[in-house]
Structure formats: C-alpha cells, structure tokens
C-alpha cells in the first residue's frame, strides 16, 4: 500500500466516502459534501458562463457587431422575473429562444426521426432480422394510436407492440446498469488505487 500524499486526492477521497456514507444512513457529513458539490458546480457554471459571454457575445460586440447590443438587452430582460411588476418582460427573450429552438428542432426531426427511420424500416424484407425490425416498428407504433382504441381482432397489435417495447426497455435497463456501475468503478478506482495506492 502506497497512500497518496496529494492533498487533492485526500479531499476527493474523503468527499467520495462522505457521499457513500448515505448508503448506511442519511447523515450530516453526506449533506455537507452534497452542498459543497452544488456550490462548486454552480460556481464552475458561472465562471464558464463568463467565459462563454466573452466568446459568444462581448468579443463579437466589441469587434464591431454592435447590433448584438439588442440580444444582450433581451438577455438582461431574463432577470425581469425577479422584479414582480416587470416579470412579464422576460417573455420577450424567452419567446425568441423558444421560437428559434422549436424551429431548429422541428425542421430536423422530420428528416432524422421520422423519414430517416421509416426509410430504414421499409427495406427489402429478405432476412428474418429485417422482418423483426419492420414488425417491431409497426406494432410498437400501433401502441401509440391514442385517438381510437384498437379492439377485437386488432387488439393484438398494440399488445405485441408492448412486448417489443418491453424487450427494448430491458435492453435499455441492462445498459443503464452498466453505466451506473461504471460510475461506481471510477470512484472505487480513485479510492483504492489513487488514494490508498493498493
């Protein structure tokens, strides 16, 4: 064992142990570390925000794009929410962001998430896998026919669709476990290898 002499490693390891202590019972040490994390994260977001402000807004403005003064004023209006009598003014910048955001997302979603996906499904069904993907897509889509209920002989379609979706969610769950476990592995490596030097 070759315990680290790096102060940072000690702080990081003790913080991680503080977080893990909640697995035994909620306790003040856990809550303290949790609050410190939120404080540091918010601080990092602000520092990065200042840098982003310089890069995305201030530098272009001082470089001659004076028109950017208008979106900057609109940006300031976001803070009108803290002044009750003028809080409605924050709707102006928000409406621009929401309108532009909705437009950008919508124009691509038609192509990527509908046309692209349907094109990949409507292929020559020469293999069993192609048939499974085709039927799986069709049946799971039938589950979302919410305007009318498929009844009688057609009721099997959404039921089979649900089975396909359950298989997909099972796969998603298996992968989710992998993701969460690897986060714990990262911390354990830090504690045992980097801190304790085992």
């Amino acid at each position, binding site marked *: 064992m070759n315990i680290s002499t790096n102060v940072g490693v000690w702080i990081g390891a003790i913080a991680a142990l503080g977080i893990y202590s909640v697995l035994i019972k909620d306790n003040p040490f856990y809550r303290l570390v949790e609050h410190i994390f939120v404080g540091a994260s918010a601080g*990092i977001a602000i520092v990065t925000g200042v840098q982003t402000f310089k890069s995305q807004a201030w530098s272009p403005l001082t470089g001659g794009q004076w028109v950017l003064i208008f979106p900057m004023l609109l940006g300031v209006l976001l803070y009108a929410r803290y002044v009750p009598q003028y809080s409605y003014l924050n709707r102006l910048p928000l409406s621009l962001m929401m309108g532009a955001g909705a437009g950008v997302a919508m124009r691509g979603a038609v192509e990527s998430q509908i046309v692209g996906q349907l094109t990949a499904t409507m292929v020559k069904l020469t293999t069993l896998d192609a048939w499974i993907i085709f039927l799986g897509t069709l049946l799971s889509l039938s589950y979302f026919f919410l305007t009318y209920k498929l009844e009688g002989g057609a009721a099997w379609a959404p039921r089979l669709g649900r089975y396909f*979706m359950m298989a997909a969610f099972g796969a998603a769950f298996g992968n989710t476990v992998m993701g969460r476990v690897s986060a714990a592995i990262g911390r354990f490596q830090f504690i045992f290898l980097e801190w304790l030097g085992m």
Partner: protein
Amino acid sequence: MFLRKTVPTIIAGVCGVVVVVAYFFEIAPIKDLASHILKWQSVIAVFALGLGGVNIIRLHTKNLQRDPKNFYSLALLVTFVITIVVGLAMGQTSAAYTFIFDYINVPTGSAIFSLLAFYIGTAAYRAFRAKNAEAAILLITGCIVMLGRVPIGAKILPFTAPATDWIMSVLNVGGQRGVMIAGAIGFIAVSLRIIVGLERRAYGGE
C-alpha cells in the same frame, strides 16, 4: 396585454417560421435573417446561464436569514464564492481552478451519480419479478444484456455475448424505433404549437 401576449407570440412565430423556411428553401435574405436569429438566441442563452446562480444565491441566503446556523447553506455559498473568485481572478486554466474541478467537483459529482449503481441493483432485485409476460420479457432481455455486456458473461454463458448484439441491433431497434417515431410526432406537434402561438406557457405566457 400587447407586451405580455401579442409581442411574444409574434416573436416566437416569426423566429420559428424563418428558421424552418431557411432550412428548406435557398432564399438568401431569409437564410441571412435565420442566421441572425440563431446568433441572437445564442447571445440570450448566455445570459440564461446566470439564472441558476441567482436562484441558488436567493434560496440559500434566505435559508441563512431564517436560520443563521444553517451550516449546509453556508458551506454551499462559501464554495460557490470561492470557485467564482478563483475562476475569474486566476483563470480557468490555473492550477487552483483545476484543483477545485479535479478534486472537489468531479469526485463528489461522480460519487453522487454512482450511488445509482447501488440503488439500481436493489431496484432490479425487488422489481424484476416475472409476474406476467411483459415483466418476463423485460427481465430476460435485461439479464441477457447485463451479462452479455461484460467479459464474465461470455465465460459463464457464451450465448449472452452474441445474444446481446442481436438484442441491441434487432429486437431493441424494433421497439425503440416505434417509440422514437411516436415521440418525434409529439415533439413536432408541440414545436408547431409554440410557433403558431398555441403553446404560450413555453415562454411564460398563459
């Protein structure tokens, strides 16, 4: 009324329509206008980054006013201020700022998220019971993928590795694609409602 309702609706509508039209048609002035709109929204978005910080300061200073012995809020605010001072005064590439990121932010953040490894395991143990066909399918595919994704799975049950590849690229695609298409249709409907002014709640309207 005009500033509260009409102007935001017009702004959202014009911005949305211009951005969509610029994508599908080669009209130079519209393309130009769309790129200005996107630039403007990026500048406004920068200001939105500060809202989180303001909310945190308001909440925790109120906590401290109510109870000056609230050690947690004090610790949060002290860490918040130190991080900002170090970041702004010494720079983001400075050793002190990197220290805060590497040894406070990352270890605690990772440890918090990794708690889910423990919770998700017990949740699987308690909830994954094959009580009906749907639950059985979920359980079986979940277990195969869990084993197939790690080296020991291939050692104990060799079929799990190819089965996982097949589940991911065939069975999973069938189910996920239906969800994706249905989700996209809903998403487009909401976007359209925002653009034509039927969904004013998105920007604080009613």
